[in-house]
């Protein structure tokens, strides 16, 4: 039924429209309570649903945060254990290197001290004094001069002078001997000084290391206690490690691409240029496989050297087995690098051949113009082919950091996403509630006339009741 036909149930469309409007308003007014309940119910259901969803997301975010915290603490604990282990190894090295010869050093020190003591004992021996003539001289001097004391005194004087000269000679000799002994002590003093200096340096080094160990142990304890500050530091470090390792991995990927370019073309000579596996050329896949094998060998080499710890099985191998593995992986790498150098040379040969053929097909007779410096690019390509596999070995280090930090970064990203989602759900829930209220108001908008009448009637009824109560009182 169209609008036009609706307006024709009276001869006057305007009247029809007014009647229809009144009927519509009446219908809306009569169903107002039900409509309000329906709107309120729908808005409430939506709002509650969204709030429940928001709470669930918040709980999921909390669980994820807890898990991320555990992961961070575990990673931090492991890293600190490694650092402390390394510091202890350094202390052990210092002790082994500097203090291993302690018994020998002690013996030498004792000998030097003993020598010094002996020399000192010898040095303190005082030279004999001149005989004690003084009293005898006094007695003789007191005698009468006539008793020929002067002659005696002269003899005594003579003897004394002689004795004094002898005593002085002895004294000089003794002093000279003492000086010689003291001179002999000098090397021993120096030896003692040097030895003690070395000991002091070693001890200082150990003290410095022990201070570092103390610091790391404090941090380790903070991690074990699960302190928020430790988690915060670990989290920020993890993000930094993630970006740095991602950057290095990007550089390594570029190196891999260069490596791939070097060997993809000559690989076509080995496995055919037109075979496909799926949508990819077999030659390209073969070149990629070679590079992947090189990277894998690099990973195993790094694991064998215990520089990285991606595979606990390799780390747990016996030292003998690890050394064997190291030698094997290095030999394979060397072989691969040699093959790559050969392929890089082959690439240059193939390029020259292709250029010559293209020139022939173009009718270009300038093939006689041979570049005399072509050997430089050939050598450079061969060098790159040989060096790149070894350079790719070091990808293992950023890869390990990337893998370890990825867990944390993904966790942090997940937490952020869940937080935003929870906020959006909460906002939507509140929005639904307010939209329900708005819809009720909008419903009432065309009903302003009956609502106004209802309001007036209610006031009148209230007035009537009030009057009746007043009359009763």
């Amino acid at each position, binding site marked *: 039924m169209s609008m036009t036909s609706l307006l024709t149930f009276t001869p006057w469309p305007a009247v029809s429209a007014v009647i229809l409007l009144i009927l519509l308003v009446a219908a809306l007014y009569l169903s107002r309570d039900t409509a309000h309940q329906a709107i309120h119910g729908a808005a409430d259901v939506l709002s509650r649903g969204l709030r429940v969803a928001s709470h669930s997301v918040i709980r999921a975010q909390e669980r994820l945060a807890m898990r991320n915290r555990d992961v961070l603490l575990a990673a931090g604990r492991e890293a600190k254990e490694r650092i402390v282990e390394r510091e202890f190894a350094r202390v052990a090295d210092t002790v082994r290197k500097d203090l291993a010869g302690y018994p020998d050093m002690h013996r030498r020190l004792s000998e030097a001290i003993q020598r010094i003591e002996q020399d000192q004992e010898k040095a303190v021996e005082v030279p004999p004094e001149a005989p004690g003539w003084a009293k005898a001289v006094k007695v003789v001097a007191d005698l009468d001069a006539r008793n020929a004391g002067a002659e005696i005194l002269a003899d005594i004087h003579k003897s004394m002078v002689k004795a004094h000269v002898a005593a002085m000679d002895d004294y000089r000799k003794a002093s000279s001997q003492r000086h010689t002994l003291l001179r002999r002590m000098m090397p021993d003093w120096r030896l003692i000084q040097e030895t003690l200096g070395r000991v002091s340096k070693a001890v200082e080094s150990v003290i410095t290391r022990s201070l570092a160990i103390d610091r790391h142990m404090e941090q380790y304890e903070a991690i074990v206690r699960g302190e928020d500050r430790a988690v915060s530091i670990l989290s920020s470090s993890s993000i930094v490690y993630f970006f740095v390792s991602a950057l290095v991995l990007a550089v390594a990927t570029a190196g891999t691409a260069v490596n791939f370019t070097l060997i993809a*073309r000559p690989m*076509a*000579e080995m496995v*055919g*240029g*037109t*075979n*496909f*596996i*799926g*949508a990819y050329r077999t030659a390209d896949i073969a070149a990629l496989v070679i590079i992947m094998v090189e990277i894998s060998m690099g990973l195993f080499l790094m694991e064998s050297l215990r520089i990285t710890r991606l595979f606990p099985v390799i780390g747990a191998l016996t030292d003998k087995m690890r050394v064997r593995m190291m030698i094997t992986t290095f030999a394979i790498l060397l072989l691969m690098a040699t093959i790559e150098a050969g392929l890089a040379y082959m690439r240059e040969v*193939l390029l020259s*051949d*292709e250029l*010559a*053929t*293209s020139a*022939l*097909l*173009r*009718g270009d007779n300038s093939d006689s113009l041979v570049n005399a410096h072509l050997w430089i690019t050939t050598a450079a390509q061969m060098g790159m082919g040989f060096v790149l596999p070894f350079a790719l070995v070091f990808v293992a280090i950023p890869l390990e950091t990337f893998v370890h930090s990825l867990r944390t970064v993904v966790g942090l990203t997940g937490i952020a996403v869940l937080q935003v989602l929870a906020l959006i759900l909460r906002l939507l829930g509140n929005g639904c509630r307010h939209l329900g209220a708005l819809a009720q108001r909008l419903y009432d908008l065309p009903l302003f006339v009956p609502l106004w009448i209802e309001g007036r009637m209610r006031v009148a009824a209230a007035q009537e009741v009030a009057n009746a109560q007043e009359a009763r009182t």
Partner: protein
Amino acid sequence: MKRHLLLLAVTIAMAGCAPSAPRNTGVYLLVDTSGTYNRQVHKAEQIILYALSRLQSSDSIAVACINTGSFTEKDIIAKTTFDDRPSTANKQKRAFASRVEKFVDQSTSAPYTDITGGLLQAIEFLNEKHTAHKTILILSDMKEDLAKGYVRNIPLDFRGFDVVALNVIKLRTDNFDPREYLARLDEWRAKVEKGGGHWRVINDIDRLDGLL
């Protein structure tokens, strides 16, 4: 769940190991040596060199001449399928170019023009090669002139073929009445398209970009 995963893995493995569809190209060049068109034969060398420069390993190429009776292998001047290895393919290209050069130098004029026979031979050759893309190049004025006794009003199956008429020169009579020229080309177009093929005409052989 495990079964589904296993099934998925097997499907992916089989898809990966399944022999892939051919991606190679087959080119068959028909060179008209009849009458006055024999003077245009040197242009064939230019087209062949261009084709050789575009073709890759595993592609096939053949060059045949159109003369009195062209539905025969004897008219094939040179044919080859390039080796899988690029270096060998380059050698083959050089050898092919050398053979074509020799043909161009020694080409003689034929009294009749059996284009349909040449096309039949081309279809047979390229179908045998099972190439993914099949292209027949015709260097001719497209004026068929059959000797007595040759039956050529047979339907041709051009499904999957690109037929390119190159350097279709105008004959003296075409100058008097261009409709003859246009009717000739329309007739060939109709014949090729009726057979399920795709028809093109390139008259400027200095602009062969996009030919292969």
